[in-house]
Each structure stands twice: as structure tokens, then as C-alpha cells.
């Protein structure tokens, strides 16, 4: 049996004249949690839909749990998915919505009550879906994805609308599923959350894979940097010029300058700034994190 839960090669999807996904190539090993990130419109949902047989690729190939994506009926019974948020029938209760899917997939009806309990909806299972809050809808979507007791769980923004406690619960749930052998392929804009739980990462930018592999490998490729804040915001441009003149990459983000360089160089920068008459009010050396790396690789810098 394949040791890969997902494997795609040269996968592309063309809409009109543009490529929504362009020659994507990545692999996700079985039993890992893999983050799937990229700016809006990067092609994440299109890729997920191709993996689930909902849209046909324009080119390339892929395998899920060792089966080709052209035969979704061979692998989908072992796959749970929530794509682009939860989608259910408003006039049916949460429980009845799950029963529709359980009937369709041939899963035992008892599983519905177990899952409602697992996602914290046991007491609201009988309420109509249209009365649910966003967080409750999200939990129901996750319950639906767990119906087949999946070997591969594909989740698109599972923490949307959840409060911090709910986010933590989902994190723990995903961790425990992965510990029990389920592969989790999760897309999210909460990069700090993904950083906490993911071992693997696939990063898309404008339909192209810019990174795919173990998350630590990504961090190892990144330079340390420092965050600089000055007394007057207009001085940040000068700080950037000073850094760039010294051969360090720099860019502005959220009213601060982010300057690549080891922590030891912070003192030099402080001295150069002082000599130029600039008062630095914050100078914080940082190790690379997913958010910083994301902006670096996707070029989506503010």
C-alpha cells in the first residue's frame, strides 16, 4: 500500500485563459497533519475539489490513498471532507442532516449521535440547521466529514467562526485523529494554528506550489529577522534604506520594518540608526514563523 495519502503531479486546472492551478506537484505522507496555505484565490479550493473528484483537472495526475483521482469512487468512502465551509439543508435538523449523509454513504446511523457528541452538538442535534450559529455550523461540518471514520480528512477553513476555545478543541481533535493514523489535510488562514499542529505544509501562490514538504524544512530555509519600530513612523523608510545599504533585505508591515539578519546585527543597526538621528523604540530579533514565511514566499506583503 502507498505510504502517501495524497500525491499530485503536474496537476493543472484552467478556467478561460488563466490557470487556477498550475502544474502543482506535492505529496502528503500518511498519518500526518498537512497545512495547505495560500492567499485568497491562490487555487487551494480548486485543488481540493480536484482531489475530491468534484472538478476535472485540465492536466496532470493525482493519487489519493493510492488510487487515481480519476476514480473517486475507489477512495472517497475513506475520505471525509468539508469544502468551503459547511453546507447543509436549513430546514432539517443538524442530526437529520447528518443522517442524510450517513444514509447516502451507508454508514451506521448510531455514528450520528456519537459525532454530535464528539463535536459538542449533542444538545442541539434536534434543532434546525438554520438556527445554528456560525460556530455550530462549522462543528456540524466537521462531524459530517468524520462520518466515514476517514483515513484522510480534508478540511477547508475548519476553524472559521469558532471561538478560541472551539479552535483549541478542533486543534486537539485533529491531533488525536492524526495520532490514530488519520491523515489531515487542512487549509486555514490561521497560520499560527497551522504552525502549532502541522508537520507538513503545501503553500500555493497564484496557482503554483511555492513550497511542499516538512514544515521544519521550510523554517530552515528562512532567514532570522528583526522587527523595528521607530519614534516617528516616517523614519522606517530611512531604517530600511540603512539596512538595504548594509546588504539586508527589508520591508514594511503593520507600521514596522521587518529586516532580515541575525540577532547579533541588531546592535549594529541600532548604532547606525542613532548616527542617522533616528530613535528606535522597538528592536526585536525573531526566529522565522509561518506567518512571516508565508508573506515572504507568497509575496503578499503589506
Amino acid at each position: 500500500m502507498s505510504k502517501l495519502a495524497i500525491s499530485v503531479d503536474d496537476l493543472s486546472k484552467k478556467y478561460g485563459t488563466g490557470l487556477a492551478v498550475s502544474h502543482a506537484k506535492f505529496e502528503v505522507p500518511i498519518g500526518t497533519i498537512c497545512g495547505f496555505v495560500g492567499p485568497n484565490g491562490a487555487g487551494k479550493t480548486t485543488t481540493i475539489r480536484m482531489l475530491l473528484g468534484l472538478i476535472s483537472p485540465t492536466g496532470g495526475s493525482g493519487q489519493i490513498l493510492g488510487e487515481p483521482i480519476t476514480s473517486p469512487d475507489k477512495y472517497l468512502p475513506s475520505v471525509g471532507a468539508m469544502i468551503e465551509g459547511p453546507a447543509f439543508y436549513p430546514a432539517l435538523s443538524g442530526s437529520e442532516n447528518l443522517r442524510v449523509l450517513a444514509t447516502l454513504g451507508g454508514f451506521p446511523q448510531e455514528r450520528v449521535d456519537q459525532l454530535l457528541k464528539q463535536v459538542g452538538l449533542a444538545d442541539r442535534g434536534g434543532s434546525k440547521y438554520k438556527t445554528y450559529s456560525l460556530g455550530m455550523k462549522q462543528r456540524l461540518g466537521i462531524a459530517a466529514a468524520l462520518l466515514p471514520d476517514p483515513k484522510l480528512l480534508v478540511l477547508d477553513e475548519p476553524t472559521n467562526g469558532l471561538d478560541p476555545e472551539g479552535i483549541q478543541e478542533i486543534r486537539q481533535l485533529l491531533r488525536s485523529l492524526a495520532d490514530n493514523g488519520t491523515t489531515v489535510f487542512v487549509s486555514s488562514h490561521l497560520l499560527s494554528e497551522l504552525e502549532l499542529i502541522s508537520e507538513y505544509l503545501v503553500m500555493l501562490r497564484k496557482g503554483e506550489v511555492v513550497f511542499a514538504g516538512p514544515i521544519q524544512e521550510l523554517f530552515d530555509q528562512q532567514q532570522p529577522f528583526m522587527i523595528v519600530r521607530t519614534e516617528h513612523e516616517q523614519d522606517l523608510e530611512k531604517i530600511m534604506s540603512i539596512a538595504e545599504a548594509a546588504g539586508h533585505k527589508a520591508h514594511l508591515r503593520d507600521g514596522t520594518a521587518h529586516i532580515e539578519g541575525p540577532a547579533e546585527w541588531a546592535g549594529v543597526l541600532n548604532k547606525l540608526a542613532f548616527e542617522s538621528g533616528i530613535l528606535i523604540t522597538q528592536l526585536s530579533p525573531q526566529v522565522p514563523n509561518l506567518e512571516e514565511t508565508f508573506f515572504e514566499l507568497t509575496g503578499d506583503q503589506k
Partner: protein
Amino acid sequence: MIGSIIRIFFAEWRKLRRPTLLLGTLGAVSFFSVLVSSVLFLMIDSPQGNGDRGVQITREMLSLPSGATQSFSSIGGLLGIVALCVFAAQTAQEYSLGTLRNLLVRQPGRIRILVGKLASMKVFAMVMTLVSAVISIGVSYALAGGKNVSTELWFNGDGRLEIAKTLLNVFLSILGFGIVGMVLGIILRSPISSISLGVLWLLIIENIVGALKSSTLNWLPGNQLSTIATGGSQNVSYSHALSLSAIYVSVALVIATVLFTKRDVSN
């Protein structure tokens, strides 16, 4: 294959049996059944007529073995519109709610989904037909005595055969309208658009075109389906209506199947 179609059937039935849809539809069916049956008998002596488009249906005609189902057969068109709305809404909502992606992840066989859904909606149409038959025949029977219409022949051998024939014809008619609704739902992917277009065509466009040029009544799809329910009309024979409807419905189903199976699910 059969097992998965049966699962799709029952999954769809869970949606169709929800009280708001089931009771609401049966309420509409009951209303039309009572209304048409009552008009037929209570206006039997009216100079404006008591049938469709001012047609006069006499005591003698109502006393025949077909008398019991006279009102039931003329309800076919109205029931058809109800079926069209239900089938269209049930199909198009999968797109508008985004639930189609859930269905296809749990059951990737798209033709199986289509067959299972259609089978479930057929049963729904059957329930509609039976409820309407019971109510319209019941109301007709209750009103016949007061209007001096003999019911002696209604339930003898010939009468029972007429009831069976009309049940089948009305069911076929309703099913045809329903399939048209389902096809519109697949093509337009919006319940409001598909219901609006279907009802607009059947109630307004076909009536205007038919009134302007009566020869078109031989070809208009809604008229063929309504004619099946009545077992034929002065303008259109039953066999013509049945064969032409079969062609229309088959072509529509082929188009819908191709669209449903080949189109990307991107909403």
C-alpha cells in the same frame, strides 16, 4: 450499484418527507382537488360551464363509469405544476445550498445520484397522485347525490378500470412535469429561476401561444403532459400526447444527465 441507488433513494426521501415540504405540498394538492371537484359538481347547471375553459360537463357524462375520475383527471395540469416546483426546488437547492458537493463526496456516482433522486421524487409524485385521487373522488361522491348525478356505474368493473387508468395517466403526467422541473433545476441551478421559468412557460407562454395559434397545442410540451392526465382531448389524441411527451422528457433527461455528469461542481 443497486445498493447505492437504494441508499440515495432513502437519503433523498429524508429530505422530501420533512413536514414543511410534505404537508405543504399535500395541502396544495388537497386544495386543488377539493376546488376542482367542487366546481365540477356545484356549477353543473351554470351557463358558464363547469369544466376547463368553460366546457360543459353534463349529469349524463358524470354518470358514466368515468364520472368518478372526471375532476381528478382535470386536476393533472395543476398537480403537474406543483410537482414541477417540488422537483425543481429539490434539485436546484443542491447547487444553491452547496450541498451537492457533500452528496458527491459521499456518493461520487453522478448518474446513480440522479437515478436515486428521481426514484425518490417519483414516490413523492405517487403520494401526491393518490392523495389527490382519494380527495377528488371522495368530494365528487359526496356532492353527486345532492346534484342528482348517479354514481351507480362509478365503482363497478368499468368504473374501477377508469379509476386505475386515470391514476396511471395522472401519475405519468405529474411525473413528466416533475422531470421537466428537475431538468430546469439542473440547467439553471437556482430554485427561484427554475420554478419561475417553468411556471411562466406552462401558465402564461403556452396559454398565450395556444390562444393565438391553436395548432401549436399539438406541440406545446405542457399541453401534451396535461392531455395525458385527461386521457386525450378534442385537439390532441392520447397517443400523440404520450409519444410526444416521451420524446420531450427523454431529450430533456439526456441533456440534464450530460450536464450533471460532466459539469464541474464549483459552488
